[in-house]
């Protein structure tokens, strides 16, 4: 069994450590890039190295030391297995759980807090040495800090692990079996145990168990769509047909599907295993994917940026005041304690956990809408996406051939290609249609697998290739039970399709018991069919095939072909009863029946049609300012046709070639600026320099890349990223996986997607619906806005938390708020409110604005920091000080008397400190009052944070427009703030270590006017922003 666990990338926030590393890294980066390029080239070369397809059977036998008839010996196989390892892809390298956990423990602010905790303990140690009765405060603080870091770390780890578990359920692999000849015996063994040189047998419907050189096969077809993106089945035989191992017919590739194999008598193809496991083509692509560095998600970059800002402020303010404190002749130990307090006050301990929760809430919401996010941070990425590179097959299209057009009676009819195409609305009254439908039903070898009567027709499993499947389903929908029709028209002989004939033929008895004639039906390449016809059926009557009819045929053929559709011709012929009596013995080898002068009936064209929801989704992406580029391995004509039908190339835009054709001039003469759209093939791309690619990407709003290799997809994604775009790649095939990995966000299809693609992707569309991407964009943009609000909310109180320490150091007030009390704001009252902001609805239509610029529109910008810190933050600090002074004044200490009181206040020996009323206070009494002050300050901040929470609901609109009560979670948040504060003050007021006291009821209301002031102030800010857009105010006050 192949064990595959998906790699889940943890939310990593690197703080200060990164700054130092950065310099060193930049220099190395170029080298890395070069190295990577070389590596890719190397990979390309390796593909070409393969020469087994040129060798004869004998040469192969010697090369791999095997025997085509008897197979390998078991011992030799065991040796090879031991030597080369199992035939399975190495799962992507996984970070051990413990490393992930430790990363959470040291990421982000954690390292700062660890330093703080350790400093606390050291400070206590030093104090203890000099005075064994030193207070335990710093031990408490250090422990609390450590606990905080560990708890938030565990929490973040748990969040990550939860999303991992969702993913794990997605990769239950069914162990694959293979039929192998060993020791002259046929054995069924797990595919994992295949070794090079094994002779394997493949049936129709099997997955190819390894890279295989075919030895004998006939009518073998494989589906290479996951490897190359071609939706059409590729025929395979034992002949060497092409120098390129990817194109030659005698090699089939690991993990592609064999659709059909019809070597008589057993219906199998035989081949020799030439590559196993990671050495297969798929394995190389997969390793190419894992070799691609995982780009940091935009939100991770933003969070890092934010962490740097906050950590920078914290450390620099801390050190500044450390120096000031030392200069003011404070004891160094005290100065260290101040430093810690300042850092703790500045660091929003709860914020990163909050962000994680907000992201996972969005992830959950998206999962409900069928967007499964593997990597939590990728939730936001779609929101900032500016280019979507979409694979065609299976992503934009349904990945199944469907009848799209018919031509008969000199007329083109359109068939329904939607996902359930139940109503085929074209005119079916003509006699020609009767004949045509009969040919479609009879000249077809595909069959439904039995036991699917209750399954809708379009969903039934069919044995047969894609075109035949399409025809079978098409006729089943229109005619009803095709199997029954075939039974009534008994088949007497058939010649299956092959590449030399390019037609398929069968002869049937007719269902009319009076008609003893045999019916010959034939389908194939239209030009070949036409050659064999001398008459054509028009309105149910045979007419001679004259020149004008032939012209009409060609026009129709060209037209349908031009739509990128695969066209088939159909003809029939009633064999004269006198020449071919009922007992006539037909022989498919000698073809003892006429195959010319037949009656041409009609053309039918098929395409892998676009999903019905795609055009709408593409339009929505466009209006959201996102460029949609198609990147496919398929042919340019098909690609262009699909691009046009889904709107990737809009109806009125032309390519250079279109203009040339319209104006009847050479392609070179066309002014390239006139063309809005471009179709670029892999061959052209190969010759382009990176600069040319950049130019191409920059100049054309509508681009289609066709016939691209996996490596080229990677190059295209890199090109887009060079334009500073955030690139999303959608895809389902193995060939997409490197690009999926390279992209800022890889989106894989959940149903049709290959495991390799799902592995490499960050997001999986469970319903394969491209339009789910639009949901993703919307949610991503919303969460970005809401994270801004959350951060603004959380940062605001930092000033109110920081000021007490600064003022304590400089002005010598009794300490207004304790470090542990601060943590109760950061991790207590503020947690639920800041999560509540994630539930906020969008302020305006976020789908009508341009995606944010990666480098300009930051999550935390200067405006946000200035407004939060210096406007609301300072107001909050004032309000909190008001409560603090009120408490002290009522207890007997007037504000003025508090200044420079610190030394006397903190002295343990001074037990009769006089207040303004002449009362005398012992140090314990003062301490109790100090704790009451902490509680008061805490309550002051809490009350104003309620106002802060309300104002953060919007950034521009009035709160009243947004609706005060629309987001109920906000109120839950406010309630939680109040309840937590009440619990802390009245419930835990007697626990010494927590430094809370029971606060008089009226003190809870002292800061209320300040809270109202904050609200009014912010409403004014928003009003001026709305009144004067683009003004100085707008530029500086809008965050």
């Amino acid at each position: 069994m192949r064990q595959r666990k998906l790699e889940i990338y943890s939310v990593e926030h690197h703080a200060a450590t990164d700054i130092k590393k950065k310099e060193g890294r930049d220099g190395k980066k170029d080298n890395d890039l070069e190295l990577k390029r070389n590596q890719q080239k190397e990979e390309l070369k390796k593909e070409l190295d393969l020469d087994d397809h040129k060798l004869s059977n004998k040469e192969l036998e010697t090369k791999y030391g095997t025997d085509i008839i008897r197979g390998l010996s078991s011992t030799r196989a065991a040796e090879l297995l031991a030597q080369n390892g199992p035939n399975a892809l190495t799962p992507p390298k996984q970070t051990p759980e413990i490393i992930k956990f430790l990363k959470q423990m040291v990421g982000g602010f954690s390292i700062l807090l660890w330093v703080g905790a350790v400093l606390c303990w050291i400070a206590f140690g030093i104090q203890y040495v000099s005075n064994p009765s030193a207070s335990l405060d710093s031990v408490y603080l250090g422990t609390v800090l450590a606990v905080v870091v560990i708890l938030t770390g565990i929490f973040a780890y748990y969040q990550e692990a939860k999303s991992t578990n969702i993913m794990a359920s997605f990769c239950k692999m069914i162990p694959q079996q293979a039929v192998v000849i060993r020791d002259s015996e046929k054995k069924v063994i797990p595919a994992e145990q295949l070794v090079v040189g094994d002779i394997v047998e493949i049936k129709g419907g099997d997955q190819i168990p390894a890279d295989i050189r075919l030895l004998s096969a006939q009518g073998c077809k494989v589906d290479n769509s996951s490897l190359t993106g071609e939706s059409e089945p590729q025929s395979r035989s034992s002949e060497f047909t092409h120098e390129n191992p990817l194109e030659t017919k005698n090699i089939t590739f690991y993990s592609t599907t064999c659709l059909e194999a019809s070597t008589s008598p057993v219906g199998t193809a035989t081949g020799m295993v030439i590559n196993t496991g990671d050495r297969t083509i798929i394995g190389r692509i997969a390793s190419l994917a894992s070799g691609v560095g995982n780009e940091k998600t935009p939100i991770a970059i933003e969070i890092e940026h934010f962490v740097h800002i906050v950590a920078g402020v914290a450390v620099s303010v801390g050190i500044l005041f450390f120096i000031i404190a030392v200069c003011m002749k404070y004891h160094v130990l005290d100065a260290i304690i101040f430093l810690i307090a300042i850092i703790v006050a500045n660091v929003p301990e709860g914020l990163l956990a909050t962000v994680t929760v907000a992201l996972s809430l969005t992830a959950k919401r998206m999962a409900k809408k069928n967007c499964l996010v593997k990597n939590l941070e990728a939730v936001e990425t779609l929101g900032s996406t500016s280019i979507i590179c979409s694979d065609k097959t299976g992503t934009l299209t349904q990945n199944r051939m469907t009848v799209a057009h018919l031509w008969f009676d000199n007329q083109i009819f359109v068939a329904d290609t939607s996902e359930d195409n139940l109503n085929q609305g074209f005119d079916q009254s003509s006699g020609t249609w009767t004949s045509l439908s009969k040919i479609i039903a009879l000249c077809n070898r595909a069959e439904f697998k039995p036991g699917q009567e209750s399954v809708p027709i379009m969903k039934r499993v069919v044995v047969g290739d894609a075109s035949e499947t399409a025809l079978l389903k098409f006729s089943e929908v229109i005619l009803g039970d095709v199997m029954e029709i075939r039974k009534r028209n008994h088949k007497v002989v058939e010649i299956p399709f092959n590449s030399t004939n390019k037609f398929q033929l069968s002869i049937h008895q007719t269902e009319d018991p009076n008609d003893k004639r045999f019916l010959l039906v034939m389908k194939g390449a239209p030009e070949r069919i036409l050659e064999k016809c001398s008459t054509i059926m028009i309105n149910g009557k045979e007419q001679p095939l004259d020149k004008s009819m032939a012209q009409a045929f060609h026009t129709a053929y060209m037209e349908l072909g031009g739509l990128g559709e695969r066209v088939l011709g159909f003809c029939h012929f009633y064999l004269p009863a006198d020449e071919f009596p009922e007992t006539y013995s037909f022989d498919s080898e000698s073809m003892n029946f006429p195959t010319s002068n037949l009656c041409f009936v009609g053309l039918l064209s098929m395409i892998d049609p676009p999903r019905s929801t795609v055009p709408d989704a593409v339009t929505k992406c466009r209006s959201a300012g996102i460029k949609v580029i198609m990147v496919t391995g398929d042919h340019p004509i098909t690609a262009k046709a699909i691009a046009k039908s889904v709107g990737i190339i809009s109806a009125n835009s032309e390519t250079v070639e279109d203009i040339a054709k319209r104006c009847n001039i050479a392609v070179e003469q066309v002014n390239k600026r006139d063309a809005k759209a471009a179709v670029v093939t892999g061959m052209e791309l190969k010759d382009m320099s990176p600069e040319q690619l950049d130019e191409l990407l920059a100049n054309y709003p509508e681009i289609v890349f066709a016939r691209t290799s996996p490596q080229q997809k990677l190059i295209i994604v890199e090109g887009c990223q060079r334009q500073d775009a955030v690139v999303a790649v959608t895809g389902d095939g193995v060939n997409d996986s490197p690009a999926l990995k390279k992209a800022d966000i890889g989106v894989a299809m959940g149903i049709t997607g290959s495991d390799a693609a799902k592995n490499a992707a960050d997001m999986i569309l469970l319903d394969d619906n491209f339009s789910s991407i639009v949901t993703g964009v919307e949610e991503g943009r919303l969460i970005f806005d809401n994270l801004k609000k959350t951060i603004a909310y959380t940062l605001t109180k930092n000033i109110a938390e920081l000021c007490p320490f600064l003022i304590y150091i400089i002005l010598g007030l009794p300490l207004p708020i304790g470090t542990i009390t601060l943590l109760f704001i950061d991790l207590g009252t503020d947690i639920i409110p800041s999560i509540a902001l994630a539930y906020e609805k969008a302020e305006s239509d976020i789908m009508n604005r341009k995606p944010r610029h990666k480098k300009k529109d930051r999550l935390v910008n200067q405006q946000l920091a200035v407004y939060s810190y210096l406007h609301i933050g300072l107001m909050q600090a004032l309000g909190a000080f008001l409560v603090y002074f009120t408490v002290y004044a009522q207890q007997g200490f007037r504000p003025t008397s508090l200044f420079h009181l610190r030394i006397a206040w903190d002295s343990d020996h001074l037990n009769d400190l006089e207040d303004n009323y002449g009362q005398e206070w012992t140090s314990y009494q003062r301490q109790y009052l100090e704790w009451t002050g902490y509680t008061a300050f805490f309550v002051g901040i809490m009350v104003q944070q309620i106002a802060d929470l309300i104002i953060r609901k919007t950034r521009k609109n009035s709160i009243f427009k947004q609706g005060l009560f629309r987001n109920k979670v906000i109120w839950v948040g406010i309630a939680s703030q109040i309840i937590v504060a009440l619990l802390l003050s009245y419930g835990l007021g007697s626990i010494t270590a927590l430094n809370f006291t029971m606060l008089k009821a009226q003190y809870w209301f002292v800061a209320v006017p300040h809270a109202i002031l904050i609200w009014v102030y912010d409403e004014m800010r928003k009003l001026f922003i709305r009144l004067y857009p683009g003004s100085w105010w707008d530029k500086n006050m809008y965050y």
Partner: protein
Amino acid sequence: MRRQLRSRRAPAFPYGSRYRLDDQDEVNQNYLADEEEEAEEEAQMMMASNSEEEKEEEEEEEKEEEEGQGQPTGNAWWHKLQVINEYLWDPERRMSLARTGQSWRVMIRPFAHSLNFNFNVSEPDTWQHYVISLNGFLQGYNDSLQEEMNVDCPPGQYFIQDGDEDEDKKACQFKRSFLKNCSGLEDPTFGYSTGQPCILLKMNRIVGFRPELGDPVKVSCKVQRGDENDIRSINYYPESASFDLRYYPYYGKLTHVNYTSPLVAMHFTDVVKNQVVPVQCQLKGKGIINDVINDRFVGRIIFTLNIET
């Protein structure tokens, strides 16, 4: 008569009820209950009589209002609510839930940043600073100053001064000479030169707070840990070793400008020499708490004497 007096003003019985509450709610373990049942009963009776007066002041308290409605439902219920009310609202200090408790804290002089008195009798340098400190402290108690500024009020009762709040209040005399041998008048070294140190004890001032009527608060010192005979004799000045009621209540330094805290001097006349003697001086009297663990200055003070010869 006694009850009348109490109920007219804010209750003069702040602890009993608090005790009981703390006990019941197990919230405040700071105060260790050792008060007699009697006191509790008294407290409850007292509260009942107070309630009418207090109501006006308590309007802002929601719970208060509820309680008012609940009044008719029964006496037991009413009592319970009273208890809760007392817990939430402290009528004496007119504050709710603020428990910076009302009990006498004490402090001693000389104050030397430490409660360990170590000195060598024969080396004046080791005790000179105590003498200076005491002298400085007692400047405000000089007889001449006291006679000039303060009045001689009758002992044994509160010196209650009704009238406007802003009105200046008179203060009772506490003369330095009350301290006799510890006044520094006869022995300017306060006994330090003879190995018989004087230590002055005062109660921290609290605005409006009064000790129990009846026997005034007394001071009593003993060896805290160890052999009781380490201190063989202590003289107290004034001889009653108590703080007279006439010095209470204190009206705050804004109006009670010349208020002089009453003192009790402890003269350790016979203490074991050349070893550390831990001394605990406690206040004794009705309603006095002197065994709180967290605040070591509530109703008592612990210091050490180490007199070397």
